[in-house]
């Protein structure tokens, strides 16, 4: 079955054009004209990716994004006319996985959608099932993160980011490498994506996000995970 994309945009011409373009790429599409309709359709069509315009009548795209995140980890790509740092960062903080600036290159949009649809690379490391860093457990096959048995809600992208770092504990990843391994970008993209998502991830998994122990910043280089209590190589005895 073809992947389903929910296009949320009040500009009908653009929405129709995106739909035509995505059909050409063998995607199935649904269109929502505003935020309320989008939240409704999220239930009914169960999309694989949401393309969300920032400027929407009524409920703002940012709010829609935050509301979707309350119930779902579905990948969200924001469509924005503004490339200002503040706008982009706000969108990412509200839970968007990625963003594209209008006018975008159709190929770029498709590439980003595909990157979000890509099967997670953890299938390449089947021998690892459980990693523990500080007091946080990462259950790789279950796609779950727990602290003392309590589940922490992470979006697939956040999980992917944490897992990529945790699979090689203490190894420093540059932002560019993370963009390539987590977002799947081969070309130079905006490293702010990494910064904002690390912040979001920390706010969920760290006890004190100002003094992180699970995802540490190495100034001028990038990020690394804290020391693994249970090394990835070891088979967990659960």
């Amino acid at each position, binding site marked *: 079955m073809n992947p389903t994309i929910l296009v949320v945009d009040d500009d009908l011409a*653009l929405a129709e*054009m995106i739909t035509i373009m995505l059909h050409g790429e063998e995607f199935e599409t649904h269109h929502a004209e505003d935020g309320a309709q989008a939240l409704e359709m999220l239930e009914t069509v169960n999309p694989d990716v949401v393309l969300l315009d920032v400027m929407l009548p009524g409920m703002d795209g940012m709010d829609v994004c935050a509301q979707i995140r309350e119930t779902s980890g579905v990948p969200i790509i924001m469509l924005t*006319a503004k*490339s200002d740092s503040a706008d982009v960062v706000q969108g990412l903080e509200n839970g968007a996985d990625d963003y594209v600036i209008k*006018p975008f290159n159709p190929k770029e949009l498709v590439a980003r959608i595909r990157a979000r649809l890509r099967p997670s690379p953890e299938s390449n490391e089947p021998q690892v099932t459980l990693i523990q860093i500080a007091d946080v457990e990462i259950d790789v096959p279950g796609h779950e993160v727990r602290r003392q048995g309590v589940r922490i809600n992470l979006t697939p992208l956040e999980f992917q980011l944490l897992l990529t770092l945790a699979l090689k504990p203490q190894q420093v990843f540059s932002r560019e490498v993370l963009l390539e391994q987590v977002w799947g970008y081969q070309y130079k993209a905006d490293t702010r994506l990494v910064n904002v998502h690390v912040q979001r991830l920390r706010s969920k998994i760290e006890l004190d996000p100002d003094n992180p122990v699970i995802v540490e910043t190495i100034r001028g280089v990038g990020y690394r995970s804290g020391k693994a209590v249970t090394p990835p190589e070891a088979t967990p005895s659960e």
Partner: protein
Amino acid sequence: MWRWWREVKDILAGPVRFWRASLLTRTVTVTALLSGVAVTVIGGYMSLTIQSSLFNSRLDQVVAESVRTSSQIQALFDNSVTPAGTIDVETANSSAQTAIRTNQSVPGAGGFAILRTPGQITPQTMTSTSTSGLDLDILTTRLRQAVVQAPEQLHQQSVALPVDGEEVPAVVVGSVIQVPTAGSYELYLIYDFSDVQSTLNLVQQTLVLGSILLVLVIALVTWLVVRLAIGPVKRAAQTAERFAQGFLEERLAVKGRDVIATLARSFNEMAQSIESQLVRLGKLSRLQQRFVSDVSHELRTPLTTIRLAADVLNERRGQLDAESARSLELLLTQIERFESMLTDLLEMSRYDAGAVNIDYEPVNVVEIVQDCLDQLAPLAEQKGSPLLLEVFGGYGDVEADPRRLRRIVLNFIGNAIDHGESRPIVTFVDSNEQAVAIAVRDWGVGMDEREVARVFDRFWRADPSRQRSTGGTGLGLAIAQEDALAHDGRIDVWSEPGLGTCFRVTLPRSIQSSVNDSPLPLPPETELVDTQGNLVDEVSREQVSPR
């Protein structure tokens, strides 16, 4: 000589600056100096007047006494003649001496001398006498001759009288007395004026002390008055300065109805009007920037639709006839151009609004330049310009916004390709302790002075008829300059018609450091290309094409 003068100037520089800076010091100093001169003149005059009147009154006293003494002594000698016509001159002499001593009533009478006028032949002689210890040298020959020649007159002369090894001022009064049978004798009475002198000294000391005090008092009063007067002026100056620094809400306190109050009122009115003008202009300018920004944003959505549509058509190009295909191609390139214009316009409006954030991070300048060269290599090849890179330094990381730095370099190289006349283009990188510099040199058409002056103007083009291959928007260099300024750096241009152009950007190595001298000269020297813009033979292929 000159060095000496410079040293003096250096030493004086501090005080001179202080002198110029402080109105108070200047006023007080000038007042003190002028009143000092006035007091000196008045004091000098007073001192002279007092001196002469003191001296004269004493002299009158002395002369009067001398006359009295002289006539008394003459009478004494005349009366000493016995009825027989004889005289015991020595006895008369000693009683004359006693008479002189008792007669000397004026204070400071210093002595006397009775001397025989030389050159007389008389029946008997009287011994010349004088006060013991009196140095007869003080009676000058001139005085004695004057006394002898005009015996009927009194003669006086100021002398320095040695007393206890010191000389004190004194006056000698000389007259002639006739001693019967012994001829004429000169009588000298010496009066010590040292008490007059000490009175005079006291007066002068008092005058000097009084003058100094007076000058000090005048200076103090001036200081107080000036302080009172310039206090408000100083406050006004400080307020005006703060106003000039941009604190537009600064106002002066208006007190009373004097000239200072008028100044304060006028200043406040001026400030009010400037502030409201600026607020109005600021509002207008914000509105305009907002408009530009909104227009750019609003245009983006339809442009996206157009672009997607063109792209979908492009996918089916094979089904189109030749003219439709060409039309589509034109459509695509123009959409691209439109896009970059919108981007530049938006960036410019962001700079105009001051809403620009520099995302500093450690960047490697050489790597960025290499990236830019790689990116433009196909275009350069198409235009036939070999791209060369000469790196003298700058391998270490600097703090900069990589996106903006890349944009500057791409713009330089793009311009060089456009105007390079298919000649080589050399990019230079160098750094020093404070700064890093990138220069791009072409050997193309170049520009004259007038054109160089306009090169950063928005939408300005050196030659509108020239074909542009990089799809420039006309905002590139304006944005590049803003990018450099946002980093506290700068862009310099060198250009000569027919010789080519060189753009150089100099950025500080870190946020803290500042740019003084650029590490690269303008234009930099190179051995890769000769002055005619031909590649030097030895340049190998590796150097010509970026890796």
